[in-house]
């Protein structure tokens, strides 16, 4: 698994640089020549923006057809085809595509350059393939799903949808950190707009605000990180940054655990990036916005809050992986936070009854896996899990959305049962089954199994992380249980369903008949097509892992190639340098032959249950997954006679208050409310009154003083002419008296 392609292409300095030249490594970076790519790649950026503008136009002319949906599908579809073409024509050399000069500020010997250009390497292509692909499919799905809202709202939905794809493309493809930041804020805005799509619903508005505000906290970290990057490295452009001799020197130091040689300011950069990533990708403690974000329409939940936007944090870490390597604490924190998030949200998901919320918490949990993967030095595992998760979680959300759409907003798994046998729901059932198998990590046939395995195995390979490995294995069992809890409750068992409360204002009321005579509204061709496509993609994603990868031949599978040929690669020469160090000076670098985090070329002998972790993990995680599924089958399907009751209920009672606490999300929202929101609110009230009394008081006082003076002097202007004359005469007399007295005194003196 040696990777030098990226480095020989982009970082000729690294291989040439001996570790003892660190001190001399701070001279100005050599001009990096990155080739210019073809301009047609700009279509990927331009088309989504164009669809947004067209949707705005449709809204203005009062279009009431599905035209906005078809425009968006076409735009995203052509963008996807362009991305495929970009992938096909990519020859392994990263290049940039310049759209226009954006920010170029020169001061002294420094200059800040952030052009509107796009940096294309394998990681970019990898990410854009599933972003544009899923956007196309989900736009198609939404064309049917949103059809109740034809008219201005429909245009608004697809306008924001196109804007989201545009922003995501800027985020992923931008060639500098400022472009990434632009896209980062853009997707945040679109997320806000789409969560609050039903803006007449107070919960939706509150959820949109919550998402936006929680994301601001993360964005602050990212903004400061970008700022520090420029201050320390003097550049924001990836191509220059990743070949910067200073940074490469730091990485060399980090490889042998010599973190004292790296200035603290450089070590702070990844920590700040990390805060941004945790906000956007809903990691503990900033994950609270994502479950609430399910107030948005389901296609939005599928695209933005499951498949693409929430993986932006993973992308950020993968893209700036060289920077992360230079910090002693960043990657361990990433790994641990990911693990904690995975476990915490899995426990919450076990106790929820709203199927869309279960999926939301499972998204948080799976994002935790991705971060754990990045943290335990397998960006490949993290990014591969991003891809598989994007497919199967979008599929699961879209299935839940179809249920919600067909059963008038019903999402409670206690009120739905046996949908498998209801006419017209076959494809949804198949889609749900495929999605659940993937999420549960069912062995051999699901991509989710392989991607999760990569992360779990690497957790045992990388020294010091076996605790994380065990927690994640346990969480995998929980995941299998709660996933199949949904499937067995909603799709299997006796047929029983109760419509949700959106039944009465349903446009299809006549189709459905009267309230007492409810007929579910089976999904149409658009939804079914998308579900089938995604189900097939979820299964086919196995091939990305299977095809091409061979340990004997030292070749890498698709995902590994795409990730490690980019800046997310970190382990070229990772082990060999460490060995050189160890051989030269075993006293000073006592970690036997490895960097502080192990090596890839020379894996540590870390036997797991008496075998190579990569091999053993296949059996362990398969076993755990199957046990979870079996448990769910026994507790939630076996012998169940109605929708509301199952064998789990009496067992749950034995746990005392714990299931109730999990159902209430461990009261995290309430705790945040108590320790953060309430003090802030009290503080804001105090400052409100300080502002009102002190600041406004002072300003008003200065306004009031002249008026007071005028009020005192006003009566003297009486309107009586002689009165003025008396004043004048009196004044004159007084003046004369004064003069007189002065003269008398002068005379006396």
């Amino acid at each position: 698994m040696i990777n030098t392609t990226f480095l020989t292409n982009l970082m000729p300095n690294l291989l040439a640089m001996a570790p003892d030249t660190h001190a001399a490594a701070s001279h100005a970076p050599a001009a990096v020549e990155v080739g210019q790519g073809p301009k047609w790649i700009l279509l990927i950026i331009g088309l989504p923006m164009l669809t947004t503008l067209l949707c705005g136009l449709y809204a203005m002319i009062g279009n009431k057809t599905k035209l906005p949906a078809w425009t968006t599908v076409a735009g995203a579809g052509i963008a996807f085809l362009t991305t495929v073409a970009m992938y096909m024509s990519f020859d392994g050399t990263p290049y940039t595509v310049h759209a226009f000069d954006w920010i170029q500020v020169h001061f002294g010997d420094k200059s800040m350059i952030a052009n509107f250009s796009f940096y294309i390497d394998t990681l970019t292509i990898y990410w854009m393939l599933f972003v544009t692909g899923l956007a196309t499919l989900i736009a198609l799905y939404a064309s049917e799903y949103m059809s109740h809202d034809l008219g201005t709202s429909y245009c608004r939905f697809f306008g924001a949808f196109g804007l989201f794809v545009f922003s995501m493309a800027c985020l992923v493809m931008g060639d500098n950190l400022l472009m990434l930041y632009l896209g980062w804020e853009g997707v945040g805005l679109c997320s806000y707009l789409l969560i609050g799509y039903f803006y007449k619903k107070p919960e939706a508005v509150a959820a949109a605000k919550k998402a936006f505000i929680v994301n601001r906290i993360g964005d602050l970290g990212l903004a400061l990180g970008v700022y520090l990057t420029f201050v320390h490295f003097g550049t924001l452009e990836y191509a220059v940054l990743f070949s910067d001799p200073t940074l490469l020197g730091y990485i060399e130091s980090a490889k042998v655990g010599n973190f004292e040689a790296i200035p603290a300011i450089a070590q702070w950069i990844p920590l700040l990036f990390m805060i941004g990533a945790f906000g956007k990708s809903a990691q503990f403690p900033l994950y609270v916005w994502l479950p609430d974000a399910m107030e948005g329409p389901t296609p939005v939940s599928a695209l933005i809050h499951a498949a693409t936007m929430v993986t932006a944090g993973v992308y950020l870490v993968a893209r700036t992986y060289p920077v992360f390597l230079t910090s002693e604490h960043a990657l361990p924190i990433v790994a641990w936070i990911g693990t904690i998030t995975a476990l915490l949200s899995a426990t919450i998901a076990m106790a929820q009854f709203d199927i869309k919320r279960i999926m939301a918490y499972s998204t948080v949990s799976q994002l935790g896996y991705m971060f754990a993967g990045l943290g335990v030095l397998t960006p490949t595992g993290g990014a591969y899990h991003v891809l598989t998760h994007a497919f199967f979680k979008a599929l699961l959300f879209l299935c839940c959305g179809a249920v919600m759409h067909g059963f008038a907003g019903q999402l409670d798994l206690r009120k739905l049962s046996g949908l498998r046998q209801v006419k017209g729901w076959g494809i949804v059932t198949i889609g749900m089954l495929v999605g659940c198998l993937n999420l549960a990590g069912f062995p051999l046939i699901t991509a989710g199994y392989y991607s999760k395995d990569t992360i779990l195995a690497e957790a045992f390979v990388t020294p010091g992380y076996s605790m994380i490995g065990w927690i994640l294995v346990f969480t995998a069992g929980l995941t299998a249980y709660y996933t199949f809890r949904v499937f067995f409750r909603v799709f299997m068992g006796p047929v029983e369903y109760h419509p949700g409360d959106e039944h009465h204002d349903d446009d299809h009321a006549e189709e459905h008949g009267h309230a007492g005579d409810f007929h579910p509204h089976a999904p149409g061709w658009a939804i079914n097509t998308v579900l089938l496509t995604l189900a097939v993609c979820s299964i086919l994603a196995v091939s990305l892992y299977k095809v091409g990868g061979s340990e004997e031949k030292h070749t890498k599978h698709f995902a590994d190639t795409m990730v490690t040929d980019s800046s997310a690669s970190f382990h070229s020469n990772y082990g060999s340098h460490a060995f050189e160090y160890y051989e030269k000076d075993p006293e000073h670098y006592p970690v036997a032959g490895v960097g502080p985090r192990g090596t890839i070329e020379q894996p540590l002998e870390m036997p797991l249950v008496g075998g190579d972790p990569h091999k053993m993990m296949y059996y362990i995680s398969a076993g755990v997954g199957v046990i979870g599924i079996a448990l769910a089958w026994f507790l939630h399907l076996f012998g169940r006679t109605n929708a509301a009751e199952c064998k789990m209920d009496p067992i749950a009672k034995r746990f005392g208050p714990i299931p109730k606490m999990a159902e209430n999300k461990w009261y995290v929202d309430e705790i945040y409310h108590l320790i953060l929101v309430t003090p802030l609110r009290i503080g804001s009230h105090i400052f409100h009154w300080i502002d009102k009394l002190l600041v406004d008081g002072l300003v008003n006082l200065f306004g009031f003083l002249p008026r007071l003076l005028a009020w005192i002097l006003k009566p003297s202007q009486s309107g009586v002419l002689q009165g003025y004359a008396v004043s004048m005469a009196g004044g004159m007399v007084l003046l004369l008296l004064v003069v007189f007295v002065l003269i008398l005194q002068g005379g006396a003196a």
Partner: protein
Amino acid sequence: MDHLLHSTQLAQLAFPEAVPAITLAHYLFVSAAMFVMGLIGFLTRKNMIIMFLCTELMFQAAGLALIAFGRHHLGADGQTFVIFVLCVAAAEAAMALALVVLLFRHKETLSAQAWKELNG
């Protein structure tokens, strides 16, 4: 013409004591008296024309004082200045009277009290 006494002689007859020469103080006294009379008139009368006349009186009192000082200092400045002031006063009088006429047309009265509403 012997039987006709020169006025000076007549005065000497009437006031056997020698009349002291008329000094600056006398002029200033007359001026001050005129000014005070004008002031009192201005303060006590309501008729705007009378009040205007009173201001004229105060004006001429000032003029008189100027001439007296001019004579006292044996210079032409005072006299010149008074002639200039007279010109201005003539113009001002025309305007003031015109104003009075206008005010009268509004209220059909010459009383200054009628304009009491011009207060603060």
